[in-house]
């Protein structure tokens, strides 16, 4: 009996230790918490901080913009659990934040916490993912446009011929946005005019790499390898597709998105045409900057996007615009543009600190592309 009690006590201590360490992991730097400075305290509620992107790009950019405006940054991480995220918002409210930047795990289940925060006089920024709330500011990328750019870039190098389309998870709304974007980018027109024929189109459950490779093999075999271009909806699947193409000696135009280091390396090697990159530094800067403006009492409709954003990411103008949500609500929003990364602008991703030169230039013949 005593032994079991001891074991349980030890376990409890361990669990608390683990929670603590992961809880502080987000804020990290000394002075990260505590509103004592008198400036604006901005809290970020991460959904899944363990994914590389947030740590590498979004967080430093948000932090920099907040600190530049005299504010203080603090954060929580929900470990990909919507229930935990509701608790995290409580924590941030109790810490006395003025603005919450929210990367929501689930748009619907976070609503109670959002309402609670707003009742406490806290303003909300829906970051990267939509929350159905008219009082919130929504900052994201134009996802449909990612598909548009993919189609445009591939059609520019391969205006005619057989196209294969490897789409993402059938249950992910994004996969459909991307596909619609492709049609807007000229794919539908090219198909209608008979210049382009779609010889294979398949959804990939879970955006799985090996699944995408298997689908590509089936499409290649069904068409005697007569495929002229492949629209892959992201870089992970493009990794599988690229290998299926190389295995039969094909080097044809191929798209992707996310700016994965491996994909950028393929762009440098000439094995992938384009990786559409969402510049997370720009997204973070916009959010941090907006939070400071909101803290200073600027009305939501008058909040402006920062003027020093990279040209490629900058929206058409710096003013916010109304955005109609799938739920029929109108929210104030900044919609940033994704950036096509091709052979000629690889330096952009290296200069911004997104990837290193070594990652992009692995196995590339020196001098064959600009940064290598």
């Amino acid at each position, binding site marked *: 009996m005593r032994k079991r009690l001891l074991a349980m006590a030890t376990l409890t201590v361990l669990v608390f230790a683990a929670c603590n360490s992961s809880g502080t992991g987000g804020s990290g730097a000394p002075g990260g918490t505590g509103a004592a400075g008198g400036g604006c305290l901005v809290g970020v509620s991460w959904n899944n901080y363990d994914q*590389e992107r947030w740590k590498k790009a979004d967080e430093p950019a948000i932090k920099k913009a907040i600190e530049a405006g005299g504010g203080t940054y603090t954060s929580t991480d929900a470990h990909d659990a919507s229930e935990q995220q509701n608790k995290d918002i409580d924590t941030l409210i109790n810490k006395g934040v003025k603005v919450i930047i929210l990367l929501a795990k689930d748009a619907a289940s976070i609503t109670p916490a959002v309402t609670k925060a707003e009742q406490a006089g806290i303003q909300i920024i829906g970051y990267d993912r939509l929350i159905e709330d008219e009082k919130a500011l929504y900052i994201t990328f134009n996802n449909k446009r990612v598909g548009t750019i993919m189609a445009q870039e591939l059609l520019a190098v391969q205006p005619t011929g057989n196209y294969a389309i490897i789409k993402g998870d059938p249950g992910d709304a994004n996969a459909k946005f991307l596909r619609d974007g492709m049609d807007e980018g000229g794919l539908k027109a090219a198909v209608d005019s008979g210049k382009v024929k779609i010889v294979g189109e398949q959804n990939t459950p879970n955006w799985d*790499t090996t699944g995408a490779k298997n689908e590509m093999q089936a499409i290649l075999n*069904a068409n005697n390898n007569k495929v002229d271009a492949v629209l892959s909806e992201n870089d992970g699947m493009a990794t599988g597709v690229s290998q299926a193409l190389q295995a039969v000696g094909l080097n044809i135009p191929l798209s992707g998105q996310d700016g994965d280091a491996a994909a950028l*390396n393929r762009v440098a090697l000439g094995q992938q045409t384009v990786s559409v990159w969402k510049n997370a530094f720009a997204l973070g800067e916009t959010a941090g900057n907006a939070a400071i403006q909101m803290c200073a009492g600027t009305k939501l409709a008058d909040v402006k996007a920062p003027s020093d954003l990279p040209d490629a990411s900058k929206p058409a103008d710096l003013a916010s615009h109304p955005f109609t949500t799938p739920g029929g609500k109108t929210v104030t929003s900044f919609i940033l543009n994704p950036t096509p990364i091709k052979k000629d602008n690889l330096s952009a991703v290296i200069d911004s600190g997104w990837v290193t030169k070594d990652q992009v230039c*692995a196995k590339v013949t020196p001098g064959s592309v600009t940064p290598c």
Partner: protein
Amino acid sequence: MTSSVATSEHETGSLRDRVMDLVRATEIDGRLLGMIVTLIGIEIGFGLYTGGSILSPVNLLTFATQAVQIAIIATGMVLVIVSRNIDLSVGSVLGVVAMTYAVLMHEVFPTTIGVDTPYGWLIALGAGLLIGIILGAIQGFLIAYMKIPSFVVTLGGLLAFRGLVFDISGGSTQAPDDTQFVVLGGGPLGSLGGTISWAFGAVIIVAIALYLYYNRRQRRRFGFPVRPMWAEVGIGVVGLLIVVGGVAISNAYHWPAGLIEQYAAQHGISPEGLVIEAGVPWPAVILLAVTLVMTFLATKRKFGRYVYAIGGNPEAAELGGINTRWTIMKIYILMGILCAISAAISSAQINGATNDLGNGYELLVISAAVIGGTSFAGGVGTIPGAVLGAIVIYALRYNLQYIGLPSNNQDIVIAVVLIAAVAFDTYSRRNAT
């Protein structure tokens, strides 16, 4: 011919009984035969639907190669389930090992021993194998010696090792692998080539003949009943036909135009009229080797007999003096090794490693084993059955992709066919006894 078999009291039985007797005389597992019939049925069905185009060598080779990762792990899953345990961690273990291979070849080697060295890929393989053994041993220890249910331990493994993948990769895709390593993934460049494939086939045929001869002699020596001579010869001939057919199909697939052009350019020759036979893909060779070794371990070694004894009745096995704990732990170490082998093929097939590699494999592997005749009640299951189970799943998936059915409807068709196949088997067995 029939009369020589029907020596039993079934002499006057129906045609059905006579067929069953024939099968029984060859000592071939009924479920195995069912799987083969299902596979042939699938291929004939799709062959008719596509006007025969789906039966071309490249299609058969493609799905066979796609099934290999699942089939390899399924050979071990049979033993896990036979011993009344489960392993949910296989996909994550595969993920960890595959990521280790890719990180070593992509990040570590370039700054240490260099890219594409002749031995680099072997170092990577060795390291991956070691990690597989360690992860398997940890889980095996917790299950066998700490008596924690295998479902819980390997569920923990499923979660924890997937987390570990992100730690090893730093969250991003690691690619490419060394060029020698990619050969393990198959495809025209990862195959034996025409001549070596025939030599490989010849070795196997000789091995089959020797095995049949040796087995018959041993049985005679110890006074065990032997198969009737016609059955021995029949099995030999069928084996011969399968090997010759397999090699012939593999060699009938020729390098595609793009590769021929690359090859011709590299060697300064004209691509006109150049034909290169692909031959047996490396993953198929590896799967064959794994299946043989695993079948040998399961049926001819003490280890295998212990596993089946534990599955049949754990208490009796323990009382009978079997070191059940060590046996169980060995099964999980074996699983680690199989996952590492499978990881090499997975990583080679996409030339690198993504964080999702191996995701969801646990269900596919368990399905392959169960469809192939492994019983959750313990004690029953064969390794060749599990391999065939994996091949049937991928044959269906690939053929449905080939005809362009949307992925959600593929799932529906696969589900219906698999349940029907197992239901038919269950039904015919119940009626047979």
